[in-house]
C-alpha cells in the first residue's frame, strides 16, 4: 500500500497498514519491520516504513483516566492533542506544550518530542510526560518514567517510534486561566531586531515566535512579524466553534512559486503595518492557524514539499542564520512558511530530542527536485558547521553524517531500539 506523509514527499510502498484498536492486545506477528504511525503529520519519511508494516495506532483513542483536580490525564497513544484540548480546556486545563498543529497524536508527540512557541519556559512535550507503557515486539509491557526504566523512557521520548509501541501515556496538564490568548504582533525589521525582541519578551511572555519573509535578503534579511502572547486572564474556558476550510485536491505544481509567495508575504506583513497590534484570539487561531484549512499540504501540488528545521547555538546564531537566509535568497527557491524562535535552556528530555538551547529556523520549500535538494544540503552544511541539528520529524533527505552530527547520543539511543521496529528514515540515516 502506498502511503504518503504530510509533505507528500516521499511516497513509499508498504507491505501492510495494520490498524490497532485495543491497547491490551499483543502486536500483530508479521514479517518485516514494524513502525507505529498516528496522524502522519511528520513531513518526511520518519513516519514511513518502506516495504514494512505500519501499525496504525490512531484507533487507540480512549482516555484511561482524567484527574480534574490534579491535572493529570492518562490516555491511549492514538488520542489527538485536539481531542485532549477539547476535553480539558473547559475544566481550566491546557497541554503544557503543543506544536503548530493539534492534529497529532500523543504517541507522535512523544516520538518526536515536539516543541511549541513556549519552549523557552516549558521545554518540550516529553518534559511533561509522567509515564507511559511500552509494548515491545517480544511481548513485554514496560512501564517507563523518568525514574523507572529511565533509559528506555529517554530513548522513547524523541525516539521516532523505534523503541516499541507506546500504548498509553500519562501527561501532566497546565492551568489555563481561559481559552484565549492576548497576542501582540510587532513588525520585525531584521535579525538584530528579532533577537532584541526575543530577549525583551522572554521573561514576560509565555509564547513567542516570529514569522520571517525568507525572500528578503541583504539588510532586510530576517524581516517579518514577531508574535508574543500570554493566556488571557478573562474570556472564559470556551471558544467559538471554528469553521474549517479545506483544500479538496492537489494544486497544480506551479501554484506556489516565488511570485505568489512574495505576494503572500507582502500581504501577511501588512498585518503588522501598524508596527504594533494587540488582539485577543481563541487558542486554536493563535496556536494552530493552519488547522483551520484541512489538507493545506495539498497546496504544494503532487510533488509535495520539503521542510527544513534546524537549531543553531546562540553564540554565533546571527551569522549562521544570515548565511542560511542568504543561501536561500541566492538559490531561487522560495520558502513559504518561515518561522524563527529562540529555544530555552532546558536540558532535552530525550536522547534524540531535537529542541535544545539555541535558535531554530523552520523553512518549507515546494519540492522541485535536484535544485531544492541541493539547497537543503547547503543549509545542512551551515548547520553542521555551527554545531547545530536538523529536525528528523521534518526531514526527508538529510545525510547520515548530518544526522550523526545533529545527535551525538545516537549510539546510546540505538541500544534501546526494538529489534522488530524500523523506519524509512532510520534506515536512511543509519545505514
Amino acid at each position, binding site marked *: 500500500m502506498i502511503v504518503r506523509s504530510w509533505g507528500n514527499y516521499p511516497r513509499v510502498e508498504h507491505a501492510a497498514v495494520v*490498524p490497532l*484498536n*485495543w*491497547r*491490551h492486545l499483543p502486536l500483530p506477528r508479521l514479517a518485516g519491520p514494524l513502525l507505529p504511525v498516528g496522524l502522519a503529520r511528520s513531513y518526511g519519511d520518519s513516519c514511513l516504513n518502506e516495504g514494512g508494516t505500519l501499525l496504525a495506532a490512531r*484507533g487507540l483513542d*480512549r*482516555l*484511561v*483516566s*482524567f484527574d480534574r483536580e490534579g491535572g493529570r*490525564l*492518562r*490516555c491511549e497513544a492514538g488520542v489527538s492533542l485536539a481531542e485532549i484540548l477539547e*476535553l480539558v480546556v473547559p475544566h481550566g486545563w491546557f497541554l503544557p506544550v503543543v506544536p503548530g498543529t493539534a492534529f497529532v497524536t500523543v504517541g507522535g508527540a512523544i516520538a518526536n518530542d515536539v516543541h511549541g512557541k513556549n519552549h523557552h519556559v516549558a521545554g518540550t512535550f516529553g518534559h511533561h510526560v509522567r509515564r507511559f507503557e511500552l509494548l515491545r515486539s517480544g511481548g513485554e509491557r514496560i512501564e517507563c518514567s523518568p525514574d523507572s526504566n529511565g533509559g528506555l523512557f529517554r530513548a522513547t521520548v524523541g525516539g521516532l517510534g523505534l523503541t516499541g509501541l507506546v500504548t498509553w501515556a500519562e501527561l501532566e496538564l497546565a492551568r489555563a486561566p481561559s481559552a484565549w490568548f492576548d497576542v501582540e504582533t510587532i513588525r520585525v525589521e531584521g535579525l538584530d531586531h528579532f533577537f532584541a525582541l526575543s530577549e525583551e519578551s522572554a521573561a514576560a511572555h509565555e509564547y513567542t515566535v516570529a514569522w520571517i519573509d525568507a525572500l528578503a535578503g541583504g539588510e532586510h534579511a530576517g524581516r517579518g512579524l514577531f508574535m508574543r502572547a500570554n493566556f488571557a486572564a478573562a474570556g472564559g474556558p470556551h471558544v467559538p466553534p471554528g469553521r474549517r476550510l479545506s483544500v479538496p485536491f492537489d494544486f497544480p505544481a506551479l501554484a506556489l512559486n516565488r511570485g505568489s509567495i512574495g505576494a503572500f508575504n507582502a500581504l501577511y506583513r501588512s498585518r503588522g503595518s501598524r508596527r504594533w497590534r494587540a488582539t485577543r484570539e481563541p487558542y486554536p487561531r493563535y496556536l494552530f492557524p493552519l488547522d483551520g484549512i484541512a489538507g493545506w499540504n495539498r497546496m504544494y501540488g503532487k510533488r509535495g514539499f520539503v521542510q527544513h528545521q534546524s537549531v543553531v547555538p546562540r553564540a554565533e546564531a546571527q551569522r549562521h542564520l544570515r548565511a542560511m537566509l542568504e543561501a536561500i535568497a541566492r538559490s531561487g527557491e522560495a520558502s513559504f512558511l518561515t518561522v524563527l524562535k529562540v529555544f530555552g535552556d532546558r536540558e532535552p528530555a530525550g536522547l534524540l530530542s531535537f529542541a535544545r538551547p539555541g535558535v531554530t529556523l523552520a523553512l518549507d520549500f515546494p519540492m522541485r527536485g535536484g535544485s531544492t535538494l541541493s539547497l537543503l544540503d547547503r543549509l545542512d552544511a551551515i548547520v553542521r558547521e555551527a554545531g547545530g541539528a536538523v529536525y528528523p520529524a521534518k526531514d526527508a533527505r538529510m545525510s547520515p553524517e548530518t544526522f550523526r552530527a545533529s545527535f551525538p547520543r545516537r549510539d546510546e539511543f540505538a541500544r534501546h531500539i526494538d529489534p522488530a521496529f524500523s523506519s524509512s528514515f532510520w534506515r536512511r540515516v543509519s545505514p
Partner: protein
Amino acid sequence: MRFERIVIFGATSAIAQATARRLAAPGVRFHLVARDAQKLDAVRGDLVARGAAATTALADLDDVDRHRALLDEAERALGSIDAALIAHGTLGVQAACEADFALTQREWRTNFVSPASLAAHLANRMEPARRGTIVAISSVAGDRGRRSNYVYGTAKGALSIFLEGLRARLHGTGVAVITVKPGFVDTPMTAGFRKGPLWSSPARIAAGIERAMQRGPGEVYLPRFWWAIMFVIRHLPEAIFVRLKI
C-alpha cells in the same frame, strides 16, 4: 431531550463507542453490554474519564434466552432506561455463508434475531412507561439483496422491517424507535476493505445518531447522502439490478 440513563448492547463496537463518547457527560450513566471483558473495561474507563458513570455486563448476545435477565440487570443498574442503543453485529464472509447454511443462520441470529429480541423486550418495558428511545443499527445493505452480501443484507433488511413495524405499533405512545442505516464505515469490522470517497468515520455516524435521537422516531441514512444513493438503488428495475456487480 437529555438522555441520562443509557444502555448499550455491543458497547465495544466502533459506532457504539463513538456514540457513547458524544453522549458522555457528568450526570449521564451508562450500562454497557458486550462479550469481551478487557475491551469492555477500556470502553468503560474512557466514558468514566469523560465524567459519566458506567456499569458493565458480559454477555453473548446471540443467547436470546438471556435477554430478559440482561434487561432486568440494566434496569437495576440504571433505575429507568432513557435510551437503548443496539449496536452489535458481525459481517460474515458471504462466500462462506453460501457454502454453509449453518453459517448463514448464525449471521441471521447475530444480526437479526438478537437485535430484534432486544428491541422487542425494550418496547414492552418502555410502552407502559410511555417514554424511552430505542436506537438500532441496521444498514444500507438491507435495502436490496445484492450478490456481494445478501446474507448480511437479509438480516439487516429484516431488522429494518421489524423496527418499522415496532415504530408503527408504538406510534403515539411516547416511545421512539430509530432505525440507523449507515453506509460504508471505517471500523474494525470493515478493516479488510479498500476505502474510497464514500467511506465515513464512526465519529461522523455517531454525530448523526445523536441528531436522530434528538429528532425522534424514524429511519435515518448516515451520512445523509446515502439516502439519495439508496433511493436510486431501491428503484432500479430488477432486470438491471441483477446485472450489477455490487
